[in-house]
């Protein structure tokens, strides 16, 4: 048991650095994919067929590509196009590009959950487009969107570990460093698991709470 704690206390800095970078990566990619995903989502529900087709193509291509491949493409192939990006920004871009497709789908299906009759009734009452959107459609759509959006972000937090395979020191990269130092891996991995549980469980709890609280009666 002493050895178990020593793994953490002897390598405290590595764990702190690793998890700090995990959180940084998560926050940057969360903002990035919210922006790009919302843009794509808006395209998919827009009245312009060309934009709808572009959004759909993006989602279908990205969703069927492994995230690891997106990472590999950015780290190994993109420099061959004379575009040089550092490892950390590359990882943030990979996560953003990948997660945006899922954010887009959440937005699209969130808007689609609002029954057409709601908007029709609002228009029948003489509301303008802006009123229909801000008073009737969006509030209902947002309530339907938030819980699945949370689970997309929970998945993304876990996905940040993949950056370990591409020279980014985050939590997922700790085992490789520790293997070099000859630390007992079982203890190392347990500590990383505990770290992720601390990060993820509050998010899961919040998501379940919102799911129950904001269930839209239909």
């Amino acid at each position, binding site marked *: 048991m002493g050895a178990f704690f020593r793994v953490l206390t002897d390598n405290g800095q590595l764990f702190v650095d690793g998890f700090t970078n995990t959180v940084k990566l998560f926050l940057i990619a969360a903002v990035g994919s919210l922006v790009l995903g919302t843009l794509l989502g808006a395209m998919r529900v827009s009245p312009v067929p060309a*934009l709808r087709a572009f959004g759909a193509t993006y989602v279908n291509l990205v969703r069927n590509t492994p995230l690891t491949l997106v990472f590999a493409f950015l780290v190994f192939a993109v420099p061959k196009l004379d575009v040089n990006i550092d490892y950390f920004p590359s990882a943030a871009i990979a996560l953003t590009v990948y997660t945006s497709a899922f954010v887009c789908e959440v937005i699209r299906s969130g808007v689609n959950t609002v029954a057409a009759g709601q908007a029709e009734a609002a228009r029948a009452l003489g509301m303008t487009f802006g009123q229909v959107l801000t008073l009737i459609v969006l509030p209902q759509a947002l309530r339907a969107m938030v819980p699945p959006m949370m689970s997309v972000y929970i*998945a993304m937090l876990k996905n940040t*570990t993949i950056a370990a395979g591409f020279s980014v020191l985050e939590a997922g990269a700790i085992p490789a460093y520790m293997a070099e130092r000859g630390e007992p891996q079982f203890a190392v991995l347990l500590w990383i698991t505990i770290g992720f549980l601390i990060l993820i469980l509050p998010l899961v709890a919040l998501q379940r709470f919102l799911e129950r609280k904001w269930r839209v009666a239909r």
Partner: protein
Amino acid sequence: MSQASILYDLPGPRAKRRNAILGVASTVGIIALLAYVGYKFADTGQFEARKWEQFQYASVQRELLGGLGATLKAAGIAAVLALLFGAVFASGRLSDKWILRTPATFVVELFRAIPLLILIFFGYYVPLQYGWSIDKLWALVIGLVLYNGSVLAEIFRAGINAVPYGQTEGAYAIGMRKNQVLRLILLPQAVRSMLPAIVSQLVVLLKDTALGFIITYPELLFVGKQIGGRLPFGLPYVPTYLIVAAIYIAICGSLSALAWWLQKRMGRTPRTAAKVLPAQDAGADSARMI
């Protein structure tokens, strides 16, 4: 009109004109974007014959096929074991006895919260620490089974729970035993309702085999890295990854399409009383959304 029409009215003459203008502008924008990417490709010589010529060689094609084979092998083994794992732990979670329910719940919740790569590392580094030799294939498979098995357990549980309770009541009322109710009444209906969700979870599993790259299991992505890193062919990373991506998209895309087709079909024929579980977005945590 598509379902999305809730956000806008049927366009009148002015809106039609505006939409046409927006359509043309966005088409031009998209083409310009693609043209820029194409220019970048040409400018850095990605279309040079040298970068593509090795794909004509039977040996390189065999390498790619070998990588694909390793990917499918890991995915196949993991899929079978994950379905088993899911079935066992779903029945644990659905049990009336807390002694079965509590540990099953704990296991399922735990493995869904741990990043898949960390689970794979458990399978990879821990045997190394104790000096056991483990095949990288099994390190990968262990991780995939624990994670996807847990998600599948939730899908199974949701599938059983989606069968209206009246079905169970009715079955008990005509004198069936618990085992018969599950086997004859609940399962047949649940399987239909959860088939789309299962197929899309298997797409997730197939995509996740690419994590084998990180523990140097020689799957498709790993083989792609090797082929792309060959100096005599001018480091053809870009062509290689495009080919690898096309292979993944073709396989996963057709499985995803199957899931959507199943969902549509199951939703259409009212043969099942249970609501069809959605074929979830691969990659996000499907079971949580149900």
